[in-house]
Every structure is written in structure tokens, then in C-alpha cells.
């Protein structure tokens, strides 16, 4: 092995991280997800909840519309009959 490789090994030898590094990493890992991640998760839940509520409202509106249309159709048949009778009498 040549002198340059020896010198490179010396120059690039492993160095210890700052004091307390391992403690800080272990403590933060034990706390779970970071604040930012927690906020992101909460925001995602809010978006899902708002979306679900909107979809439910839309579904309810559609159902109400269908019921109203059915009621109108049912009511329109006798009305049409009455209208025809009135027309006959007037003629």
C-alpha cells in the first residue's frame, strides 16, 4: 500500500458525532413522529372528513331530488286527468 492511501485513511478516519448525539436521536425517535408529521396527518384527516361530509350531503341531496321527482310524477297524473275533464266540459 502506498503513502497516499495511508494518508487518505488517516485524513478520512471515522469521527465521533457531537456529544449527546445518540441520546438526542433516541429521545426524538421515542417521541414518535415529529411535529410537522403530526400536523400533516391531522390535516389529511380533516381533508378526508370534509370530503366525506360533502359526499354525504351530495348523496342526500340526490335522494331528496329523486323523491321530489317521484312525488311530482305521481301528482301530475290526476292533475292531467282533471285538466282533460275541464277541457271536455268547456268544449
Amino acid at each position, binding site marked *: 500500500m502506498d503513502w*497516499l492511501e495511508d494518508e487518505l485513511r488517516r485524513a478520512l478516519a*471515522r469521527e465521533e458525532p457531537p456529544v449527546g448525539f445518540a441520546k438526542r436521536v433516541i429521545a426524538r425517535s421515542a417521541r414518535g413522529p415529529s411535529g410537522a408529521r403530526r400536523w400533516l396527518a391531522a390535516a389529511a384527516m380533516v381533508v378526508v372528513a370534509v370530503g366525506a361530509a360533502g359526499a354525504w350531503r351530495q348523496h342526500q341531496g340526490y335522494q331528496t331530488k329523486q323523491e321530489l321527482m317521484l312525488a311530482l310524477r305521481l301528482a301530475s297524473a290526476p292533475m292531467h286527468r282533471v285538466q282533460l275533464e275541464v277541457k271536455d266540459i268547456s268544449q
Partner: protein
Amino acid sequence: MLTEAVETGCDFRALVRQHQATVFSIALHFLRDRATAEEVAQEVFFSLHRNLHQIETPAHAAAWLRKVAVQRSIDEGRRRSRRPQVALADVAEPAACIRPGDPLLSELLRKLVATLPEAPRMVMVLRYQEDLEPAEIAAALEMPVATVKSHLQRSLALLREKLARCGVGESGWTG
């Protein structure tokens, strides 16, 4: 998670203590900035904590940490690449005489390694910090072994040339 750790021998605390110097030094020697190296090393260990269930053996943990440290350091280096970097020509030649084993020579070499492009710089860090064989470096960097060997040869030749211009070398040490 504790049961898994007992079964695999991969206790998170033990892994942090055992590999903190490796992970921190890969980032430090690649980025040449202690504060950034500490941030990168922390992120690597947080990532390990999230993925501990995938780790099968202590050897797997060591290889995993090395690979993630390499990737995170390269990513951080790319983010910082918009800022001005040290060029080979900008590295000052030593004013005083330098002898083998001199801390000044170590510092000069670290500066010169920092001027290498991304891939050869990481190859040099893994070869001389971690003492990895070209095949192991190739696996960590996902590149062919021949490319690793080529990076090593060219980088050594470049450093030798620069050092010779500084009057540092086998044939004639300064002083």
C-alpha cells in the same frame, strides 16, 4: 417492536450507538460541514427507526445504514450544490513544510477530496473511511465495480498530481 428487536438482535439504541460514527462521518467527509452532517445523520437514524421491522440482522442494519447515509448525503450535497463550492484550483498550497502523518496534510487531503465530483468523492469516502472493497462500494452506490475502480484510480492520480504541485509526495517532501 421489542420482540422483533430481541429476535433479530437489532435493538435501535444499540444500533445508534454502534453506527453513529460511521453514519456521521460519511456525511461529514462528503459534505465537509459538521452541522449539516449531524442533521443528515439524525435523519438516517429516524429513517432506521421507521423501518426497523425490515431489518433482519445486525449486518443487514450496518449495510442499510451505510446505504441510506450515502443516499442522504448525496441528496444534501445536490441541494447545496447551488451554493458556491470549493474548486480544485482554489485549494491553497501549504505554506509550511509537510511531512507524512502531519495534520496539515490530512486537512489538505480532506479539502482536495471535497473538490472531487459527487460520485468519485463518495467512492473515496467509502474506500478510505469505511475500508470497503470496490465490490462493496459498487453495491452501496449501485454502480458497476469497473466504474468504482476507475473513480479510485483517477481520483488517486488527481490527488497525487495536485500534491506534487504543492511539493508533497514520495519523491520530495517539502522542507
